[in-house]
């Protein structure tokens, strides 16, 4: 399975699940990082971490370790 952290800048995918159900994932879901939503990696910070993603039409930044709990499919 691919996780969001594996995507390169410019790639899109469909969120298919979460590998964790802690407070982090709860916060993500509140912000619209939700199963079935499309997500796009916009760019990486100069150090390669954190990453900037687009979800529901807005920009969100999260750490690589946080993006590693989000499963994605249909990566383009």
């Amino acid at each position, binding site marked *: 399975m691919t996780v969001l952290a594996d995507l390169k800048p410019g790639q899109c995918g469909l969120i298919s699940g979460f590998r964790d*159900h*802690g*407070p*982090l*994932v*709860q*916060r*993500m*879901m*509140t*912000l*619209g990082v*939700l*199963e079935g*939503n499309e997500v796009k990696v*916009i*760019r990486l*910070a*100069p*150090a*390669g*971490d*954190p990453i*900037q993603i687009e979800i*529901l*039409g*807005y*920009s*969100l*930044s*999260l*750490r690589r370790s*946080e993006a590693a709990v989000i499963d994605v499919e249909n990566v383009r």
Partner: protein
Amino acid sequence: MTAITTTELGRTTATVVVIGNPNTGKSTIFTALTGVRQKVANYPGVTVEKRSGHLSLDGMEVELVDLPGTYSLAAHSPDEMVAVDVLFGGLEGMEHPDAVLVVVDASNLRRNLYLASQVLELGVPVVVALNMVDVAKARGIEIDAEALAARIRATVVPMVASHDQGLDELRAALAKACRGQLTAPSVHVLPELFAEAERIAASEGERGHPVKRYEVERGLIDAGAFAETRLIERAGASLRAELEATRARLGSGRPLAALEAQRRYGWIAAQLDGVEKRSEPRRTWTDRIDAVITHKVWGSLVFVLVMGAVFQSVFRWATPVMDAIDGAFKSLGTAVGDALPPGALASLVTDGVIAGVGSVLVFLPQILILFLFIGVLEDSGYMSRAAFLMDRVMRFAGLSGQSFIPMLSSFACAVPGIMATRVIADRRDRLTTILVAPLMTCSARLPIYTVLIAAFIPHRHFAGGWLGLQGLVMLSLYLLGIVLAVIAASIFKRTVLKGPTPTFLMELPAYKWPRPRAMVLRLVERAKVFVLRAGTVIFSVSVVVWALSYFPRPASIHERFENERAEVTASASGEARDTALASLAAAEDAAYLEQSVFGRMGHVIEPVFRPLGWAWRVAMAAIASFPAREVVISVLGTTYALGKDVDEGSDTLRSALQGARWPDGKPVFTAATALGLMVFFALCLQCVATVATIRRETQSWKWPAFAWTYMTVLAYVGALLTYQIGTRLMAG
């Protein structure tokens, strides 16, 4: 329970709560509605600021309460619970609001409606300010506000708050809501949860535990978070089992928080179907700016330039104003001192009151300049990009990118730096940053370094004159602060402030032009908060310190010096007499200081500081500099009988320190002692303004006490090691 005090028609007062996501223009709307009629207080027991303002609507006096920007009513921390309590009228002294104003960003409606859907369940009339419709339009998003209003059963007012568009319509809608002419929407996105929460609240009520439905609702959803903890504290452990059973039943294995998110976003999609039309997304200005600002090379360059400008201006621009304030208070002190008869009253007014007030006001220029920059950076959207760029670096200290600006500001002054920690979302990260920020070398340490380096560090150059020993010492003192701050932060994050790693989920909002009006209001408010709250503490401490260094004043000293003065007046004349009288006056000051409570304390604690190589006068100067580090210079000056007016440029101070001798004739100050003293002041927390600011920002004396203790221990050990190692190296 509601605030309806008179009949519907004759209502004269009402309360409206304002809530919204961050970056929706909520503050702009709040300021546009209330103008300067705002005040900031604290909710009891928590660090959340209660910002409220007043406005008149059709003869009604309406109190507007602005809640901090939030994405959800989930209550993980006590601070987040405050917002929920305010909305439901569960906070002591605050009644159920008459209406809620939800500010939403039209260009980002889906995510913004998440919070709105929670508010629509409150059972009070809701007015939705659909802000930034211009931005939405530019991005190809059309919203049918009337259709949306019909769907969610609330008043929806399209607005462009930054251009004052839609404000009259908003006022009219709020007036209607306050008069009770709007019905409350009855949205229930999770009806089964609502029913269960109602049942549990009722059965707990029968058992004599008055808990509220909404508390149970949040307690059920946010498992293990503050809402649940507080419920169980009130109603006992039996409720825990009940909550767990209910959760299992409702979620059928899945966390309720996930269920809530799924349902709410499903509900939002249904409401927006046909209401929101999006054409092909266009490349926005924000995308174009971001391509530069967060670029590997250009982004880092812009970052260094911006931070350099912030640091330089706080450091340099503030200095002339601060010197002017300082000078003004000094001449005021002199003028008042000349006008009053000499004695305790004159000394209290000049050395206590005027110097005390001056020591508060002198910080204002730095605070205002820094907050002006932070305001611009925050409102424009750059602040979150800076955190994005610096996150990786700050993780060395166990912190996140959000701690960068407060730490950088602390190089100028820890007071504005600590005030700037408000941008840090996570409580533990914020506390850690507050605790280590005073380790950064602030401008108040420079006079101490300048005097001691000039007097005791040899003027030597290496590498063909490029590297000076004096400069290297200064640089090492800066690095010492940074390195110890990183170590201290990572220790705190592993011990006293241990907890789950905070999330770095952070919105990167669209770039915006800052609003000057809102910014000026915020600056005035910051200045007020600092002068009134921190100022009272700083002022009282200054007066106490004055008293400790003034009393007691034995008559014997006065008599002794009167006799000597009489002798001088009789035997000498002209310039020689004036010089002799001046040095007598200085010696008299020093004699009084030695007799004072502080002087005695210096003698008592001398053994403690002996391993650091400090004479009792140095120990006393260190204690007397409790209000502010730089005071140590003038106390050293006074105690080594120079008179009061010494500063870092003074050659006489330098030679007096160089000439100071122990009873056995050895010099008091060696390079090792001086280095130790500098290390002490690099690491100690001798600054009442910082202590008072930590107290204000953490709402408790526990954290300033902790910060003072750990830094003093660090300072002592640092000075001890420096002196002992330095003495041995130089001897060998």
